[in-house]
């Protein structure tokens, strides 16, 4: 497994780097706005639940779909890669193949499902 991961490393690292960028740009605002401020009703004159039509219009445009896929799939790779490195940092090198395999399998599955969802929009 480690050998396979090593050969795929340029691809994985590319996805990881993109994921860190996209995730750093979007996830704080997602967490704080959709996860805290809106549910608590702390934003004046904002609708919650968020109207389906409001988001659907932008997301169903071609550019919207591309952004939506990147926003979901790339951070998965960033998170998976960081989780794998954390295990090594705490002395888990001997499980690296297994941990890496599981983390990236989850990210790959999520990316695939995100593609389905984006196409179904």
């Amino acid at each position, binding site marked *: 497994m480690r050998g396979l991961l090593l050969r795929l490393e340029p*691809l994985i690292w*590319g996805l990881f780097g993109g994921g860190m960028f996209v995730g750093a740009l979007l996830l704080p605002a997602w967490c704080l706005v959709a996860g805290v401020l809106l549910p608590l009703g702390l934003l004046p004159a904002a609708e919650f639940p968020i109207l389906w039509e409001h988001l659907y219009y932008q997301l169903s445009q071609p550019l919207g779909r591309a952004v939506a896929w990147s926003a979901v799939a790339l951070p998965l790779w960033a998170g998976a890669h960081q989780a794998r490195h954390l295990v090594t*940092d705490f002395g888990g090198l001997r499980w690296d193949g297994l941990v890496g395999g599981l983390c990236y399998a989850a990210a790959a599955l999520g990316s695939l499902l995100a593609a389905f969802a984006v196409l179904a929009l």
Partner: protein
Amino acid sequence: MAEHTKIIAVTRFDPERDDAPRSQEYEVPVQEDWKVLEALNYIKDHLDPTLSHRWSCRMAVCGSCGMNVNGEPKLTCREPLSNYGERVEVAPLANFPVVRDLVVELEGFLEKLGALKPWIMLAKQRAPEEGATRQSPAELADFKQFSMCINCMLCYAACPVVANEPDFLGPAALATAHRYNLDSRDEGAAQRAEIMRGEGGVFSCSYANECAEVCPKNVDPAGAIQQAKLANVLSWARSFVVRRRAAS
């Protein structure tokens, strides 16, 4: 110059007598402008001639006096004693086997460095008549920062990846390899690529950035390694395009 005493707690290890390193304290009359190394030299000269430690240039050039001072890798010839309190702990660099007292084994590092072929490689040997290879100041600026390394090993002592993955080629060696890849006179990048992206290569680095923090020469090996990863990803992607074109 004013003089007072400090306790210098030195890690001692005699492979013939000790099972494991132990700490030994010395009371040293220090002067205000002393570096840590001068306290060690005082111990060796006046208190305990059995103490072993390495040093040479005393001016942050030779890279042989690296030690962990209060847990932090430092060039002891440059590190002012006045930065520390009344008790200063001096230990051999972390992440290296200890030969004796403060002297660490560098053989592993030298092997890793050698494997990366840290010299200018040419596809074809140049004849002397062809003259010197020229390099513009701009081309020099492309790698100069990464060529300032003095092999002091502080970066290895700080790196959490070196600690967990003994095969990791490590900050200084990878930064040096990248330095040659960036050199306009070098044509060896392809030969280094295999090992740079192999087991223990650039992708083992998780960008803790510790090497950049402790490097006394502002080499920033962490920056070099991330740049090398990026270069690797790009050449990997390019290899597909080239293979496609070759196939069609």
